[in-house]
């Protein structure tokens, strides 16, 4: 029997599919193995880059990527990166997300030991280009208006966009996006205040 007629036989089809599935999964397993170290290194570098964006350079002297603490918030663990100088915690960096206009807005923020924001950056969002995307540093300096603010300065009720009687600018044509970011940062500061002792490692 020649190959051409064997190829049309019923038994040939599952064998062919099986061989291809095996080859494909073999190739994928090999590639996953070969790339996993490089991917992990690249992602760690990304994280370090974004952490050092919100944390002023030279503030911490530890490797805060490895110095972490998990605290639960609304049922989900939040990883807190601890910035230390000479062993004392002087700041905390953490990531929070909340639903924006289109999808979750991911915000990375750094808070110092007194509860003031050191820096805020939006890591990921899907807001309307040209309107809501002014929350990116690449598009506008707006996100820097949080620097140095804390609960109490401005007072709690003024942690809102100007339209709602607060101190933060909204953008022309986009109120929902800045409103959400202000709420995330405010929530982050309150979260820090609630767990301050735990984060700073003080005995209560």
């Amino acid at each position, binding site marked *: 029997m020649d190959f051409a007629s064997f190829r049309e036989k019923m038994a040939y089809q599952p064998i*062919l599919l099986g061989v291809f599935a095996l080859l*494909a999964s073999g*190739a994928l397993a090999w590639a996953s193995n070969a*790339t996993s170290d490089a991917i992990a290194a*690249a992602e760690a570098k990304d994280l370090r880059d974004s952490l050092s964006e919100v944390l002023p350079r030279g503030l911490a002297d530890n490797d805060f990527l490895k110095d972490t603490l998990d605290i639960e918030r609304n049922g989900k663990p939040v990883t807190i990166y601890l910035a230390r100088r000479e062993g004392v915690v002087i700041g905390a960096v953490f990531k929070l997300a909340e639903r924006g206009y289109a999808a979750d807005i991911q915000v990375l923020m750094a808070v110092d030991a007194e509860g003031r924001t050191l820096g805020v950056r939006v890591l990921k969002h899907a807001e309307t280009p040209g309107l809501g995307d002014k929350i990116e540093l690449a598009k506008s300096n707006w996100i820097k208006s949080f620097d140095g603010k804390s609960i109490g300065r401005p007072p709690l009720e003024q942690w809102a966009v100007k339209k709602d009687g607060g101190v933060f600018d909204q953008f022309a044509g986009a109120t929902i996006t800045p409103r959400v970011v202000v709420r995330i940062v405010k929530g982050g500061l309150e979260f820090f205040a609630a767990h301050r002792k735990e984060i700073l490692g003080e005995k209560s």
Partner: protein
Amino acid sequence: MNNTLGGIVKDGLWNKNVVFAQLLAMCPAMAVTTSGTNGLGMGLATTAVLIVSNILVSMIRHTVSSQVRIPVFVVLIATLVTLVDMAMNAWLHDLYKVLGLFIALIVVNCAILGRAEAFAVKNGVIASAVDGLAMGLGFTGALTMIGLIREFLGSGTLFAQASNLLGPSFAFLEMKIPGYGGALLMILPPGGFAVLGFLLAGKRVMESRIEERARAATGTPDAITT
């Protein structure tokens, strides 16, 4: 179908252009082309997958029976895309951050399965590789063109962030029109459809002009001396 290598190239770039003639791969063509740089990057990644998938499909075309060829090709293409995805994430991480979301979309790019079915399964390895390259470059050209037009009208820039994609030596490509804020609509999905529509109409007009001129040149002088 013109099956000389020159004919294959011409088919890919113009006559059977994936976007402008076959109207395939509309999903990536609309989703990614908010800037020239995105269009170029997506086009090049797709070209790489298309060449390799065409070569492999052509190599196994005698082994695979016609009954199960579609699942075999789908597995093959999905595996290739995943390999590209992992390799880019590992070794071209900055580019991956720009294009990451779209790489996985190459799997559902019907142009790739389309070329496997329409060309690679019936032709030799070299012809299939050339077809993949030509179709890919035609796709890249179309995406880059749509992207540039949308970017120019929508945000007043050209090739913004090209240095992220191609390396700092390509920063000279980046241009910004001073004093133009851009028309947001062109960046949003309707702008994509509008630009595609105008480009399709433009291609039709151009082709009918060329045809007319060809007819005039091959000697029916009466037709033009009215």
